[in-house]
């Protein structure tokens, strides 16, 4: 009951906040849409990072194909709104237009998540039998195959990209789903299933010996993670109104990995921190764009050498809230 009330308050705050920020609440006050866009894209990154952390950080299965599932979500949801948007709106015609759009977005995102989950299942079942670097390469390969596949579908624009997507997502929707992602992942991690995942990460053979069906657990975690990436892709498409396969190369997957590695593999707050840090640095270093990736890659190497667990490490794993209170507001400095 308490959780339900909290959820309602969270949603209300988000939508009121959105109205406030865009100038719909207090006349004459609004933040810059550029700022709002950066913050919103950070929210999408949070979904991507937290969901990838479930598989890479908590289950210990190194996947580099996350952008592929994001692409599926983006294209599927865009296709749903473009092809069936009017029919869905018509079916709920009795609602006011803003609610019609919300219904449409939710349906599109739901289908996007389902398709990404199915793809995650199809990719996961064969490849999760592999370990470590092999899995990394295979997921990278699948990610690229998904992209090449989309590129060859003319109905979604092929090489031209998919344009004319209505702007259904906004700041509030993105953070609603970011919040939901964080909630779901932290619930999973704290459940007994989550302990199974961590057991697999720590020692897969030992976990198997203890009677854990490791393949099943890994596939479930992979499917959930893919579905969330699908939602992120759907929000991305309905926020930017245009998608192109060039946005979903393995470079994008690498970017998400950088986020979770900086923040800490196996730490949800770490992923959030990493995602925010990444976008702050990206936008902050806009004038030095060509040095930006050099810096990130160096950071990645240095972190691996001096603090391979990332800024937060596994820190909030055991008692998320208690730890966070102690750690915040200043995150611990990177140990030298």
């Amino acid at each position, binding site marked *: 009951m308490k959780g339900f009330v909290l959820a309602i308050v969270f949603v209300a705050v988000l939508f009121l906040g959105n109205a406030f920020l865009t100038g719909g609440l207090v006349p004459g006050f609004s933040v810059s849409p550029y700022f709002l866009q950066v913050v919103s894209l950070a929210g999408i990154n949070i979904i991507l990072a937290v969901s990838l952390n479930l598989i890479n950080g908590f289950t210990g299965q*190194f996947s580099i194909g996350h952008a592929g599932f994001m692409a599926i979500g983006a294209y599927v949801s865009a296709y749903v709104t473009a092809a069936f948007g009017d029919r869905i709106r018509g079916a709920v015609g009795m609602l006011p237009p803003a609610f019609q759009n919300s219904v449409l977005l939710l349906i599109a995102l739901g289908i996007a998540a389902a398709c990404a989950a199915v793809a995650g299942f199809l990719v996961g079942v*064969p490849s999760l039998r*592999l370990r470590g670097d092999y899995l990394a390469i295979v997921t990278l390969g699948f990610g690229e*195959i998904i992209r090449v596949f989309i590129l060859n579908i003319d109905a979604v624009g092929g090489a031209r990209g998919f344009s004319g997507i209505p702007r259904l997502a906004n700041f509030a929707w993105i953070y609603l789903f970011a919040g939901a992602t964080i909630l779901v992942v932290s619930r999973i991690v704290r459940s007994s299933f989550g302990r199974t995942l961590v057991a697999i990460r720590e020692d897969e053979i030992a976990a198997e010996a203890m009677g854990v069906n490791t393949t099943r657990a890994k596939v479930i975690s992979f499917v959930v993670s893919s579905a969330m990436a699908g939602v992120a892709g759907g929000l991305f498409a309905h926020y930017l109104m245009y998608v192109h396969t060039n946005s979903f190369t393995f470079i994008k997957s690498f970017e998400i990995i950088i986020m979770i*590695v900086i923040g800490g593999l196996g730490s949800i707050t770490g992923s959030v921190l990493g995602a925010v840090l990444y976008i702050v640095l990206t936008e902050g270093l806009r004038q030095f764009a060509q040095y930006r990736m050099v810096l990130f890659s160096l950071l990645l190497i240095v972190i691996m050498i001096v603090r391979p667990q990332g800024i937060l490490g596994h820190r909030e794993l055991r008692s998320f809230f208690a730890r966070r209170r102690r750690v915040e507001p200043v995150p611990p400095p990177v140990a030298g």
Partner: protein
Amino acid sequence: MTTFLQQLVNGLSLGSIYALIALGYTMVYGVLRLINFAHGDVYMLGAYVGYFLSRRLRGAEPSLPRALVVMLGAMLACALVGIIIERFAYRPVRRAARLTLLITAIGVSLFIENAAQLVFGPDPKFFPSLAPRADFHVGGVRLTSEQLTVIAVSFLLMVLLRFFILKTRTGKAMRAVSFNLDAAKLMGISTDKIIAITFALGSALAAAAGVLIGMQIPKIDPLMGILYGLKAFVAAVLGGIGNVPGAVIGGLLIGTSEVMVVGYLSSTFRDAIAFGILILVLLLRPQGILGRAQKEKV
């Protein structure tokens, strides 16, 4: 039929490049159990060193000695790069979890790519002619001297490598390290030195591939190593990772199938075919064509 044979020649010359790069993957994987993501970028650096060397030597007409100088120079420079990468990036994390090693490798790869874009500029560069060129006709099939050079040089280097690994003391030590690093150390083998030599050798072969691709394509750019590297890795897995003749067979197979797919199906599947093969291999015969199955030890 002529078209098919011509495509076969095209495929073999592309495959030789993959094979040369694949050797570096296979050797490093053998000693460290690491996919050296940065290996493709070393190949790119090799091409650039070759490019700048050949610009330096301008004035001279295309000649064989000149091509040889460029090739050896690039190989030497990249051997050094390989040693540096191993010393400063991989050695500090060698004892850490394999995931840490893998992320470090990704970091090194991203670093080389982006630093190269900064230093060389993102625009592609084009190799000048290095060696005198001629075309040969064999029953309607056209063989350019570049293609023949690529195939010949690749095979020469592979034979030399095979000899080195099988017949020399260092090669023997390398095999010992690859079999069991700790046991090799206990036997008094200087494992650090052997690992460094392995990186140097692999990187030199990649540099040779870079110069050869520059001679025949002749376009080079800072990101060229990504896809070539990945496909060469697939070649190494296909042949059986850790296995030298396997890498060669894998490279030739990947190159040929890629060319055939582009020629007879569609170029859009060019990059998907290698990954498709990889997935099939890992599902059906994870140890590769020539590899031996190994059970994970507890």
